[in-house]
């Protein structure tokens, strides 16, 4: 039995557009920018005909590194058994796709403790006064931008 179907072209665009509309905290301009990026970079996606149950979805590490096996972060276990704070590399997304794409990527994380765990593990400084999820995501991306600027300044 077929478990997935391939989407490309207009169908793929429509899927992304529908998916992003569910994130009300993303402003329209950011959403459009991200959609343009995805259109350029993704040729085809495969959609599950029957989505996995929510608790079964475990983020996969962004890229494999040839070397020793990944060790699990102790904080990750304490916070959430399924969340991998290294599942997306915020600095790399900011560098390659920009702020909007980083915010969109973080939009998939909807628990404050997971966002704070990601910030801590990726050494992206976020103040304790940040309260809402949207503010937290913005603070993480800003910290990644500061990290990039800091490094560029040192290499000049």
């Amino acid at each position, binding site marked *: 039995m077929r478990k997935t179907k391939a989407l490309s072209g207009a169908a793929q665009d429509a899927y992304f557009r529908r998916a992003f509309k569910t994130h009300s905290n993303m402003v329209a301009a950011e959403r459009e920018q991200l959609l343009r990026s995805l259109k350029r970079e993704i040729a085809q996606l495969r959609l599950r005909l029957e989505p996995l149950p929510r608790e079964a979805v475990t983020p996969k*590490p*962004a*890229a494999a*590194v*040839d*070397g*020793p*096996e*990944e*060790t699990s*972060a102790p904080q990750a276990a304490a916070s959430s058994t399924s969340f*991998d*704070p*290294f599942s997306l*590399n915020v*600095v*790399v997304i900011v*560098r*390659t796709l920009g702020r909007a794409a980083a915010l969109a990527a973080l939009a998939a994380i909807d628990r404050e403790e997971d966002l704070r765990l990601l910030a801590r*593990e*990726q*050494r992206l400084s976020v103040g304790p006064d940040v309260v809402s999820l949207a503010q937290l995501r913005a603070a993480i991306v800003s910290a990644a931008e500061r990290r990039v600027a800091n*490094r*560029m300044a*040192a*290499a*000049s």
Partner: protein
Amino acid sequence: MTRFLAVSNRKGGVGKSTISVMLAHAAAAWGRQRVLLMDLDTQCNASLMLLGGEGWEKASRSGQTIADYFYDRFDNVAGDESVYIVNNVGDVAHPRTAPGRVSLLPGSQQLEDVQGELYLKQSKKDLHADAVALLVRSRMKRLMRHFGMDYDLVILDCPPGLSFAAHAALDMADQIVVPFRPDFVSQFALDRVALLIERVENAQQLASIPFAERRYACLPNCLTGAGHERLLIEQIALDHPLMTTRLPVLDSIARAFDWDERKKTMEQKYAEALAHLRKLHTEVFAGTQRRSKSA
């Protein structure tokens, strides 16, 4: 034609000497090359790994060090440089390798003093400071190149920091391996050594040089498998050519350099690190071949 391969990073403790020695063994044993390792680091770790403490002390007493070579031959480049070399060093005896394939120009704790003295000597010629520095570097490059005729591969184990000798080595190397530990400050160290190698002034100028045209490649070393290491390697890969080889923290690498006079095979010496060394050797050597073809 002799290839000059530098192993360099301005940051200390990243594994420069260990990797220099591993590559020397691999090139001799597997590449069947005549290899000279030039120890430019005043810590002399590569020399200690290949000669042991007593052997290095004996070489120092008999004037067989790089400091002696630079000092004696600075004004007289032409001459028999082989008297400064210690042949058949290390404890690897590969079945297919004749003994003596790895030779060493031992390091010296006096190298920094000697460089200062040579600089002052040249300063008496009423030259501008920059011109004097250039002269010292150029002469050191000539002295290093002098070994080109006798070896297939010269490995330059560079010191951390920037001495005249380190500058000269980076200037003349055909290929540069830059080992790094994936930690926060390593990014800055890589950026800086890359500017120096490619002779540019800032990150924007560096970015305009395609990876394929750069003389260096970065080698992730001492990996523990922590998640933040992977993130950092991904970040570094945006700005610098990265080797596909990854060297994990392994007891067998650390133990391989406990001084032991008994000769052993590569398999006995490197044990579980052997597969990593094979990959490193293949990648470095393939890179060298590609570069020489394009040249």
